[in-house]
């Protein structure tokens, strides 16, 4: 157990190092000149050279990499020239808003997707299965930003049941002191009920938008996991013993499906942190996605770089957490599946056992 954990931790560190190198390559080796962007279109050659020198772009690639690495080790991600703050501070204060969205939408997607997936998997070929599969195919075909727009049109412009898409709260709400930078938690802690309920109302639509799109992969994975488990020998044995359907479902099927679902939720949750950029843009939600979008439209290199690093970090940690939980839940992983003979664990492929990919990329 401990050896598996240590090995897995080591892999996570290696992946992180790889991501740091990749981000450097993205911004320094690919064509594109940050100095030109910072100087603006009307800068003359001299001004451009001065800015290049200021940004250190005239130094050798190795020297640039050294200072880049040094900054990261010291926790400095540079300064955003649009907000004027350090990128680390900007990201830190905006991450909770994105996390709110990710957590609530993942809960929604799990509540809807898992029962539907189990029902579909248990009666493969039935009406529920057909509806579930069709729903999942449609869910993976909807552009998430379009869904957000349609929900705003229906719920705000037509039905007037949702607030205007103005971010976390309406413009006149009294803002609570920020303890956690999460508006919902802050207003809850300070007992600011009007703001709390307003924030909840504002959270509903973006969370539902993300939730609908995330339900599809969760449903698909749960369905195929259920299908697989329900065809196993031990389920047949349990049935032969005359155990009730519910008994079998509870003790044999769901327990084994749970680990797969955990993976699915991990994949989806990770995707949310990266993919929420589209939803945050639609709802003007002040998370890291909107920050990244602002950085992209103003070509704020330090901010973009910081955002990519942060999402990479969150992905690696998430991947790690899912793998470790998986190992706790499933002893075959920590001890290897060898029945007899020397217990040699199969080496997980670098950088980890699984690779988190966007939900529409999952194939199984």
């Amino acid at each position, binding site marked *: 157990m401990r050896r598996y954990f240590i090995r897995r931790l080591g892999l996570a560190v290696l*992946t992180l190092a790889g991501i740091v190198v*990749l981000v450097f390559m993205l911004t320094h080796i*690919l064509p594109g000149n940050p100095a030109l962007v910072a100087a603006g279109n009307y800068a003359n050659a001299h001004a451009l050279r001065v800015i290049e020198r200021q940004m250190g772009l005239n130094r050798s690639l190795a020297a640039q990499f050294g200072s880049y690495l040094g900054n990261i080790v010291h926790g400095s991600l540079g300064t955003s020239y649009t907000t004027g703050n350090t990128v680390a501070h900007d990201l830190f204060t905006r991450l909770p808003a994105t996390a709110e969205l990710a957590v609530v939408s993942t809960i929604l997607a799990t509540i809807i997707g898992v029962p539907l997936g189990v029902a579909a998997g248990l009666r493969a070929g039935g009406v529920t299965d*057909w509806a579930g599969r069709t729903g999942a195919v449609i869910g993976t*075909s909807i552009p998430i*930003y*379009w869904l957000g727009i349609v929900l705003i049109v229906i719920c705000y412009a037509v039905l007037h049941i949702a607030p205007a898409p103005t971010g976390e709260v309406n413009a006149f709400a009294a803002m609570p002191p920020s303890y956690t930078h999460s508006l919902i938690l802050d207003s809850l802690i300070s007992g600011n009920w009007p703001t709390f309920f307003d924030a909840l109302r504002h959270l509903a639509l973006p969370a539902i938008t993300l939730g609908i799109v995330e339900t599809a992969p969760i449903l698909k994975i749960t369905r195929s996991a259920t299908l697989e488990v329900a065809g196993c020998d031990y389920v047949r044995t349990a049935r032969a013993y005359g155990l009730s359907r519910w008994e079998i479902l509870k003790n044999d099927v769901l327990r084994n499906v749970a680990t797969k679902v955990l993976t699915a939720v991990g994949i989806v949750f990770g995707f949310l942190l*990266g993919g929420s950029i589209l939803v945050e843009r639609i709802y003007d939600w002040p998370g890291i996605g909107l920050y990244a979008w602002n950085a992209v439209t103003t070509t704020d290199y330090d901010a973009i770089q910081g955002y990519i690093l942060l999402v990479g970090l969150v992905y690696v940690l998430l991947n790690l957490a899912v793998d470790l939980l998986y190992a706790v839940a499933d002893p075959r992983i920590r001890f290897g599946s060898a029945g007899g003979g020397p217990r040699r664990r199969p080496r997980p492929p670098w950088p980890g056992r699984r690779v988190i990919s966007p939900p529409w990329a999952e194939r199984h």
Partner: protein
Amino acid sequence: MDLTDDGRTRGRPDDAGPAGGPGRSARLRSELKRHPSLVAGGALAAATMIVAVAGHLAPPHNPLAINPGHSLAPPGPGHWFGTDQFGRDVFSRVLYGLGLDVVIGLIVAALAFAVGSMAGLVSGYLGGWIDDIVMRVADLLMSFPSFLLALSIAVVLGNTVRNVIIAVTIAYVPYLLRLTRGSVLAARGADYVLGARAVGASRSRVMTLHILPNVVGPAMVQATLMLGWAILDVSGLSFLGVGIQPPSPELGVQVAQGASYITSGQWWISVFPGAAIILAVLAINFLGDYADDKLRGQGS
């Protein structure tokens, strides 16, 4: 899905016999009956193709023609999908944009398939340090969400159609590379490969003539699905302003242009282009669902 049909008949030669087996159209009919995904996907794909081709050959209006006197007109007999803030006909723009997105998606999927399956073939067959390096790079690229990776590459390269295609392709190649490499590793020790090597076939000959045709199936299915992702991702990038730029009638660009009008009730500028994206992607995903069924059915 020519591909899977081909695989099926190759797998069971007696089935395709001219004498005993059912005719081609009868087989197709029974196939359609058993797989609603194929029906839905085929119908939607045909609709997409007709709409896209019609939009290019004979759009009702010029998709780029500005008509300030007619801006923000709601859907009606003159303009089926209404007009946008510049008075351009949304219907013509949607037709045109659909073709544009499908073509860009096709280019991305074809490029990713070519690069990914070739790299996977070479990497898997040669092994050794080449394989190590290629796989480490692929793993690294896959440790980001593909949309975000494409976004960062597109930002750095700059907003042109070519760069967006490159960015999205780079983000997809690792998935195909991994898939192909896996099949190559499985095929490397097969009897037909040993046989070919025993009669003195060169490495490149073994790879391209013997292994490639046998491992290319799953990668082709995956590349087909990628056409759908590519349409979603390219339009998503364009929606964010990182992909294809206005005034191009690309669908994501159109959704973005209408986004500022939705709260005031002019929903048609954004909603129709998005619906067109769904039409195309849905067609591909249904076909992919069917192909996936067939591939897995073959395996067991």
